[in-house]
């Protein structure tokens, strides 16, 4: 075929239907958020208040920090289910070392707790990248290993952590803004910047889109993949520190729901499970939506079990939307 023109409608990439649906996935998130806000405002007079806004922000922070890292990992074709166990292990390690004042210094304990995340990230990265074991299986394994370890360390008990300076990290405010929200803001900002404006960001998308093409273009595929697991572990550790600080206590049960909500947020945010496509902004919006949903349900005094159920439904719907976009795109 010597005529190498393009179909006019293809000029943006994708079929019209796929473009339309991807827009739903992107800007549609804003619309969904708006609808939720209007709905909950009509249902509860406590919803649209500055206090509640910042309360949502501080709850969203831990989830958001993990979800930003997970976004890059899934874009690159990886996956990290172990984040929930990192949250639990980090908190438990802090509690065990601090001994509610009788043990180590709280900040030293927090640092060791944080390094647990780093450790889990290195283990995940090494197993997936060096031993070439499927990321889903690997992190399902480490999820089990490190939650087990958290239970073992405390014999399943809850540890109280009373330390006002430490609590400031998770529950304190600078002016009207929660400290945890500022930390989330920084992580999200860096994430958005890396995705959009850096060579590393471009490389991560390339690896997810076609790892062999990336490798044969000189991108250090394995190094980047390993690094993303480490970052995911480390940021899960940071989230664990924040959660521990917010609760003023730690328990091996704390992390359990996080794995599900992190993955839900990333997929809902429009990142493709198949890799190569995704957005940090989408993830941040999805995190806010999930948290608003949770907050609104709590204000309406819905059972927390209903909240868990709704999370599952949202996850499946998000994957369905992703699948539809991809099918129409081919």
């Amino acid at each position: 075929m010597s005529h190498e023109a393009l179909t006019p409608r293809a000029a943006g990439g994708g079929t019209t239907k796929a473009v339309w649906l991807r827009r739903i996935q992107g800007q549609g998130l804003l619309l969904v958020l708006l609808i939720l806000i209007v709905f909950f405002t009509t249902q509860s007079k406590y919803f649209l208040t500055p206090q509640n806004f910042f309360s949502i922000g501080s709850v969203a922070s831990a989830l958001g920090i993990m979800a930003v890292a997970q976004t890059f990992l899934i874009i690159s074709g990886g996956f990290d289910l172990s984040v929930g166990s990192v949250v639990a292990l980090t908190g438990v390690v802090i509690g065990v070392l601090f001994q509610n004042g009788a043990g180590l210094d709280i900040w030293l304990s927090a640092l060791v707790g944080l390094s647990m995340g780093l450790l889990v990230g290195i283990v995940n990265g090494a197993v997936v990248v060096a031993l070439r074991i499927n990321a889903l299986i690997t992190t399902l394994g480490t999820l089990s290993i490190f939650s087990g370890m958290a239970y073992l360390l405390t014999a399943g008990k809850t540890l109280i952590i009373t330390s006002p300076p430490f609590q400031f990290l998770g529950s304190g405010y600078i002016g009207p803004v929660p400290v945890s929200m500022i930390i989330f803001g920084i992580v999200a900002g860096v994430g958005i910047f890396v995705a959009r404006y850096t060579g590393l960001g471009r490389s991560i998308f390339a690896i997810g889109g076609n790892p062999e093409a990336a490798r044969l273009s000189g991108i250090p595929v394995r190094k980047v993949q390993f690094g993303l697991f480490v970052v995911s572990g480390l940021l899960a550790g940071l989230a664990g520190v924040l959660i521990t600080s917010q609760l003023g206590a730690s328990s091996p049960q704390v992390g359990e729901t996080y794995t599900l909500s992190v993955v839900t947020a990333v997929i809902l945010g429009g990142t493709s499970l198949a890799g190569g496509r995704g957005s940090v902004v989408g993830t941040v919006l999805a995190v806010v939506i999930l948290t608003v949903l949770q907050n609104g349900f709590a204000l309406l005094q819905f059972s927390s079990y209903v909240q868990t159920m709704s999370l599952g439904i949202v996850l499946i719907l998000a994957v369905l939307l992703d699948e539809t976009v991809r099918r129409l795109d081919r």
Partner: protein
Amino acid sequence: MTAAATTTPAGGSSVPPVLVVDRITKLYGAVEALKDVSLTVAPGEVVALCGENGAGKSTLARAVAGLVRPDTGRILVDGAERHLGSVAVAHAAGIRIAPQELTLAPSLSVAENISMGRLPRRALGIVDHGAMRDLARRRLADLGIDIDVSVPVERLSVLHKTLVQIARSMTPGARLFIVDEPTAPMSGPEVDQLLAVLGRLTAQGIAVLYISHRLDEVFRIAQRVAVLRDGRMVADFGRAELTRAALAGAMVGGRSLEIGHRTASATEAVALQVRGLRFETVRDLSFGVRTHEIVAVYGVSGSGREGIGLAIIGASPVEAGTVEILGVPVSGGPRQAFDAGLGYVPAERRSQGLVPEFSIRENLTLAVLRRLTRVGILDRGAERSLVERWMGALTIAAPNAEVRVMRLSGGNQQKVLLARWLAHESKVLVLEEPTRGVDIATKAEIYRVLRQLADDGVAVLVISSDLEEVALVGDRVLVMRNGALVAELQGADETEIARAALAAEETPVVA
């Protein structure tokens, strides 16, 4: 039926044709994959469909088989107009196709594959294995094939797999059998056997539409040869008027792919030096490529030619040997080789080359990201101007650089890959199958670019299974056989190269 005029659909003979394709057109966007194409096939006739890559052969075959819906035109089978674009209708009318990529289940037995989807059953839905094996044996015997029906398909040779695929599609009611490029991975004797099987089909009155660009086979089997070029039916030769020159001329349409040869003087530096490379079946591979020259490596499938590119750039494991790029030894993987000044266009455009989600721009700059970043941040302006420059230089046809690369034609996709390494300013350029699946106009352009690069002082290595290509572009042609370099030829034609590649035990594919 000799030399039927291309525009009269109904033919002129007394036997009604089994297939009439009447002026079909198929557009992919603005690209005319088929334009006013007509074709008739009589019962029991073998019609070969020839043309360069991208000429529209497969699109026509798929249209006849109902896999592609033409935009305009009619398709008649046994005189009755059939619905377009329905596999079920085409199948019911007796049209069968053996696709280029076989669709067998490797772990299932020959008998299971042949009966797949229509397993003979006993009461309670239990599969009747005896009946299934009998059916498979009967089908194979009809075609004169003798294969153990209980072995898994994965243990068969390529020929036998193809034959099983044919046997599977030969259900009762078959009227026309379409074979799409069946012989690509086969040796001479295997081709003979395949042609014999097709002969049996025609003896049963089944017509064959044989798609190939191997003139040799076409001459042996076809009663008529239809030639497609750029989506148009440009010639329809009867057996009597068929000559190699006429056929080749019709396929390329007078366009020249010649770029001329040039003998590199011994004073030119050896930019790529390979010494004693050993991997897979390849033993002690040594050669050099000088600046200003194009060296082509040719070998049939299985000669060891396939692995050379990846071995040179360090992307696949080697047991021994060294590679030097501009005098610098490299052994640390692709990244190190690229940093030393090497560029590499892989054989498989889709699986090894392009990132499907990326735009032209993002694909084009993938190998130079580090050069375009300052403290990790991409310089968008520099990226844009680099992309503009190389899109222009290679005349990549697209409205802008933001178009998704998968929306381009194969030829333009290949140009994007080439541009990736031109942007990298490679001093040594290794290309595998650089024009596989691209149209002839792009092929000519790519050859001209390679010549220009060599003239500018780049050392170019083309590794290819395309005989015409190596003869056209190679200032020197290195021939591989059984894992070793067996000949170095200068100014050799296709026949000489083929002879060196096949040696005594096989007949050359080009006479």
